[in-house]
């Protein structure tokens, strides 16, 4: 099954991780007060076939949240990076 590369711990089995949803969505600023942007963020999201970016947490390891590139059609993992280091939308150098 899926093997996920944790930036801290190396390649691990997906069973060590917790899925955290779509990482391409941008969370509205806290307290923005805007019902529509919050509604869209919570309830609307694309479900692309192919390249996707997702949050996963390495709960049985370093407990870091990472952003993982995954192909939803072939269920193959690509690159990953720590969510807090570069943010969800930027990929790491190199």
């Amino acid at each position, binding site marked *: *099954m*899926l*093997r996920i590369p944790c930036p801290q711990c190396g390649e691990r089995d997906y069973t060590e991780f*917790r899925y*955290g949803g779509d*990482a391409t969505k941008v*969370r*509205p600023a*806290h*307290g*923005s*007060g*805007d*019902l529509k942007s*919050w*509604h869209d*963020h*919570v*309830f609307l999201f694309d479900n692309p076939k192919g390249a996707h970016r997702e*949050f996963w*947490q390495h*709960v049985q390891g370093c*407990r*870091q*949240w990472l952003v993982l590139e995954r192909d939803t059609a*072939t*269920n*193959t993992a690509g690159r990953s990076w*720590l*969510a*807090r280091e570069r*943010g*969800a939308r930027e990929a790491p150098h190199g």
Partner: protein
Amino acid sequence: MASGSHRLAAGGRIERARPIAFTLEGRRLQGFGGDTLASALLAAGVGVLGRSFKYHRPRGLLAAGVEEPNGLLTLGEGGGRTPNVPATTVELAEGIVATRQNGWPSVDVDLMAALTACAAPLLGAGFYYKTFMGPRRGSWMLYEPYIRRAAGLGRGTHATDPDRYETRHAFTDVLVIGAGPAGLAAARAAAQAGARVMLVEQDFALGGSLLATRSDSPLEPWRAALESELQAFANLSIGLRTTALGVYDGNTLALLERHDHARPDASRGAAREVIVTLRARAIVYACGAAERPLVFADNDRPGVMLCSAVRAYLNRYAVAAGRRAVLATNNDSAYATARDLAAAGVPVTVLDERARPDAATAQALRAAGIEVRAGVRVARALGGRALKGVEFEPVEGGRTERLDADILGMSGGWSPVVHLTSHTGRKPVYRAALDAFVPQSYAAGHFGAGALTGSLTLSAALAEGREAGLAAAAHAGCSRAVGPSPAPPVADEAVGFEASPPRPPERRGKAFVDFQNDVTTDDIALAHEEGYVSVEHLKRYTTLGMGTDQGKTSNVNAARWMAALRGVELPAAGTTTYRPPYTPVSIGALAGRHIGARFRPTRRSPLHDWHVTNGAVMIEAGPWLRPWYYRWAGDGAASAYVEEMRLVRGGVGVSDVSTLGKIDVQGPDAAEFLNRVYVNGFAKLPIGKARYGVMLNDDATVLDDGTTARFGETRYFMTTTTGQAAEVMSWLEFLLQTAWTDLRVQVVSVTDAFAGMSLAGPRARAALELAFPELDVSDTALPHMGAREVQVDGMRLRLLRLSFSGELAYELYAPADRGIALWERLLGRAAPLGLKPYGLEALASLRIEKGHVAGLELDHRNTLDDLGLGKMAASAKAYIGRELRVRPDLRAAQRWSLVGLECLEPQARLRGGAILFARGDAIAGHGRGYITSVTWSTVLDKYIALGLYQGGLKHVGEEILCAYPLKGETVRARIVQPVFIDPAGERLHV
């Protein structure tokens, strides 16, 4: 041949020096090492191996391998009893106990056969959709028990399985599936190239189709030499008796290792079966091909077999399946069987459907005295319990002729075994030259070789195997130079083939397509007539291919038959989806060691040992073991918790709350962080105070509640509910790591670092004073919601004054390894006050009386307002969920919101999950709400409950009905405020 036995005096690949005894229905029989149960039974002259699924027709062996549909036996007794085991896959071992299936009173004398013979016309495909419908609606449930009892083949057991099963992980560079010539060549090449190779073979010997050739041919020493060469590789591991069950994402496979032959001793930790989760960098599929039966009337008679099976029994097991053979075929492979039978002294006639079979091969046979008839096909097999003769006719039509025979081999062509290559969703493609399906394409790093790809000759298998092995090794990064594949010592056998021409509907008897599920050509015709023409519908309507053999000998014939009926080419008919497991696997193997107490991890409180030694009856609460009640309070839960509640309401009790989630929150921005996450204000929480808080999800449903105490300028101690601890922890980490990376906050789980206990009751302060005379725990020193860190006897404690039960109460936290010391100190020193421990049942019941919501109310569907907590939400600050909280639907007047309920019927009780109706409502549908939590109130002396009701507290005072259909109860109750004791909270402020 020995009389009464079909075993040949010489030849075969069995170990005649190792006789093995086994029993069949109490009858003692003998075989040899190297036999399967099937070959040993065949040798002993047991022709009928069971009764068929629907029609109870006598059945014998069709095949010699895993594709066997008929010869399913029950092995073993008691807890080790295993039904539906194909005898062809059982390696003969000492002491095997076998029973045949599906005959009553016995397989030899089966009364069901007579019954179903009469009913046969009514038992066509889908008969249960058309019969057993009346006379009344619901009549089906009268017939169902009888039909259920008649269904199935073998019988399972409810006794505990005494065997042990294991699971294991493994990794390899190259996996080769199948040890026929292609697989052997692939493994050899990959190993030579320097890769770490694993070769798996479901059989107990290496060689695949080579094992069916004559044991005195040059192929045998050649095969043995190749086997020795493979065993000498240090980087090649060979797994015999290992089946590849399925291929999954990421080049992950499930392998099943079988150890039955070694009679594993569970008491010594030996496992009967091992499931290996294997990750391979590259995979070579050398799964081979399975022979197809021919379709003609009564092709299921005992004695009718696949030609390759006749050959395998002859050459591998030295068993002549009969004394007079007829082989019917549409391809050249049957001729090898004919030659070998003749050499063993069995008279043979070959019936070839082709008008012009290969001249050279036919000539050679005729020269050996074997009659070959061309352009003819079998019309019907004659005989009941055993084959007696064969009726055949010209393919173009004409007079039927008859031959005596007790063995009829049939060869309808070869179907590549495409199951595993299809598991990842790549459908196979039709190849007309084979009239069968082959893998269409492979994923990156996957390769196919040999008969699987449609290459049926030995030289092709060796060449393709070598190529695949090299490619697989290269894919895994290994590319040392590799020599040529070993040259075969014999010429290739002929592989000419012509697809059988279409046949008219069979009128002379049942022509079987799926032997295991008793599906005939009539059933396919019926499905076609009723519109179930796609292969997917055909499969499900007729149950074709749905047996334990997964249609290994039936899929292609069925597709061809339906295609002919539809008047389309075969590719248009297609195949159904192949899914793991390739062959049946025991549930025990899948469970491995995760059984009983090891089914999931058990979490224990630091005080666990004390509870167990001191009369606690433990209960599972999620993964935790918690004290349910204590025996000092009573003998059973129902009475004990009431006593414990009385103790707390009237005196003082102490309960273990170590399972609560505890999170250490620290940092300069900790206050801001908490303020964002909770709906109520935390920014100004003073040091030394605790506050009850509620968290929402982004969608404004309640996520969790808990208490957070401030112990320092930047130090906070958060508690969560037991059930949501992990959820909340991940949520906080998510926010800090993905959304608010600028906040300087650290969160750490300390759930297991602290033991926690709740000391509750009017005498709680007095108990605390007795336990800690050195501390000032007066009302002024430790006011309601106060939080202190104190040192007692070198032990650092956290002391909070807060209440779950509604009585004066304190929560104490000690480092986990000092938990029992603290607990015993409390109990010992406060004993004069009557302090005793109370358990989870009482803990839960006390909070219901107080009206505190807990897990049963916090189910992620309810909002703050639903739970009566709307006033908690701050108006001045932002918090998670604030925006979506204002959605109109979440504020609708008719939402179900929290109410209290009092039972109005003294003899009845309220039940959690009961559905609530207004008086006058019909008791049907979803009602107006439901009960979430129930308890017996010692204060009110009646059953009370919390629940959700449409319109909520607008209906206080109304009488309603609580319906519990599972027990047929409807009980009257009154809606009240959801607080049953001390609504003003006076007891908290003494």
